[in-house]
């Protein structure tokens, strides 16, 4: 039995179904991300774990104990809200101490644990400040310290980094991961940022329209997407419809890989390469954009537009307007048979 178990959860707001048939097991110490487009039910799922939203159907158990009759204040979970929800009228230290006071922890121990928690998030000397006097990233850390100091059974994070700028976000991602590993707290993160999910999680739950599309390690969901939705949602993907020929599957008459049934080929842009030995899909470079550590090329082919990503490793690349031939390895592509549901 997993540490946190969600069984056949459904949440409906009137006729609108926010979450449906959700099964999820989280192991102790695991870092799990709920990833999906806006409105797919991530926050609703998190709120049901937290106890702020009651499931229409299904059961949630923590360490074998049914949570459904337990009020949010009795669940002992740590939550970091998207808006941080710091208490503006309390100092940073008082914010962090609040949960311990509620637990009637002794004064001396509170002081010590607050200090520890603030040190852990790198704010050891900021305890006397008010939230308003801190930057977004610092407020974020306070919220994290406040949630962690009560030694929660589970840490719930709802898009905790979405209010930070790109650089801060990257820093906090690293730090969040470190702090989580260090404290060993079981963590559920809600995000719509795939980069964040890939970077942080042990496992990713990809959600779409209230349903789970796929659960797996970051590498798995990226490299072996279980559905067309996952493939297109996680990273970018080129899709070609292919017809069988005696020599294999062909896109617009050009044989690309083995196969004998009509199918849709999905291939990641970074797995597409330029070839000089003739066999492949001919095309013309429409645009070539420099992106720092890589190049992004749009190539027009008879099978449709194809996105190509090449590392900025000093090798020469075709320029805009040049004709090229595209190829990829069969094992990098995934096939879905035409007629079957994607």
């Amino acid at each position: 039995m997993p540490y946190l178990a969600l069984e056949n959860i459904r949440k409906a707001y009137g006729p609108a179904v926010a979450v449906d048939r959700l099964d999820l097991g989280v192991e102790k110490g695991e870092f799990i991300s709920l990833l999906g487009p806006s409105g797919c039910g991530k926050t609703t799922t998190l709120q049901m774990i937290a106890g702020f939203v009651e499931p229409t159907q299904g059961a949630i158990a923590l360490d074998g104990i049914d949570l459904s009759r337990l009020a949010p204040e009795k669940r002992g979970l740590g939550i970091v809200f998207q808006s941080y929800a710091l208490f503006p009228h309390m100092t940073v230290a008082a914010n962090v101490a609040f949960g311990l006071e509620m637990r009637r922890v002794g004064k001396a121990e509170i002081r010590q644990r607050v200090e520890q928690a603030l040190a852990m998030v790198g704010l050891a000397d900021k305890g006397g400040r008010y939230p308003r006097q801190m930057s977004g990233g610092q407020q974020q850390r306070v919220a994290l310290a406040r949630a962690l100091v009560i030694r929660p059974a589970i840490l719930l994070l709802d898009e905790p980094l979405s209010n930070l700028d790109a650089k801060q976000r990257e820093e906090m991602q690293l730090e969040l991961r470190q702090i989580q590993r260090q404290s060993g707290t079981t963590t559920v993160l809600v995000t719509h940022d795939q980069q964040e999910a890939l970077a942080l999680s042990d496992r990713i739950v990809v959600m779409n329209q209230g349903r789970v599309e796929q659960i797996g390690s970051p590498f798995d969901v990226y490299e072996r997407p279980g559905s067309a939705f996952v493939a297109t949602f996680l990273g970018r993907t080129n899709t070609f419809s292919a017809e069988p020929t005696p020599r294999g599957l062909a896109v617009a008459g050009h044989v690309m890989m083995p196969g004998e049934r009509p199918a849709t080929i999905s291939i990641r842009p970074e797995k597409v390469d330029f070839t000089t030995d003739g066999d492949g899909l001919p095309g013309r470079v429409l645009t070539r954009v420099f992106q720092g550590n890589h190049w992004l090329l749009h190539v027009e082919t008879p099978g449709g537009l194809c996105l190509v990503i090449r590392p900025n490793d000093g090798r020469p690349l075709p320029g805009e307007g040049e004709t090229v031939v595209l190829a990829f390895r069969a094992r990098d592509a995934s096939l879905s048979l035409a007629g079957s549901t994607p």
Partner: protein
Amino acid sequence: MNAQARQGWLLVAPATLLFVGIVATPLAMTLLLSFNGWSSTQGIVPTLTVQNYAEILSDSFFAEIFLRTLRIALWVTLICVLIGAPEAYILRRMREPWRSSFILVVIGPLLVSVVARTLGWALLLGGNGLIPLALHRLGLTSSPVSLMFTETGVVIALVHVLVPFMVLSVWASLARMDPATERAAQSLGASQITIFLRIVLPQAMPGILSGGIIVFSLAASAFATPAIIGGRRLKVASTLAYDEFLNTLNWPLGAAIAVLLLVGIVAIVVGWNRFIERRYSQVFAS
């Protein structure tokens, strides 16, 4: 002066002139009037004297009335805080469509003439009114005692007139509050009472304090309600000034009372504002 400033001044000029002409001037003249003498035969005597102020400040009759005015205003403010702040919080937690409908119920009375509302209280508080009868039935009084012409009556009616201002003011500061802070406190183990006392109330405090200023200054200078409920028997500063003007016709004395009332209110309001700013500038954005 640059072009922007010139245009700006040009645009505000009409309103400024209007205000200087019809607000500043009359007020200055009233101040002057309060230093004029008066005699029952000659009326206003255009001399400069502090005799009116001396009379007010030395006579215990006036002292009692000013003290009563202050006492009533403080009670009204306190009660408005005690019932207005929770009501605002309850409204905030309501769901639609209840919330909008009850906001109408709370704001609505603000639009109804103070005279009509006070009339209602005169009916309720009078000897045959519902409240004295109810108090009697409940055994709290041995016979129905009219609350007309009593401080209690004036306080009750003024609370009714002014409490919507408190609700609105607290509502405004609750609207600035992040509702997730309540959930955060709950997830950290706080009970509903603790959440209200330690999370909501402190965040509503700026609204309570500024609502308190509004209610206090309006209660201290209220006229129609104390005039109807308090009548001639229970005078407050404003009804006293009114009597001096329209009955005794001692305008300079009436003007001095009004000036003292104004100065008192302004002093308290400014002091109060300072306190709020000092207390909260660190914590909340203005």
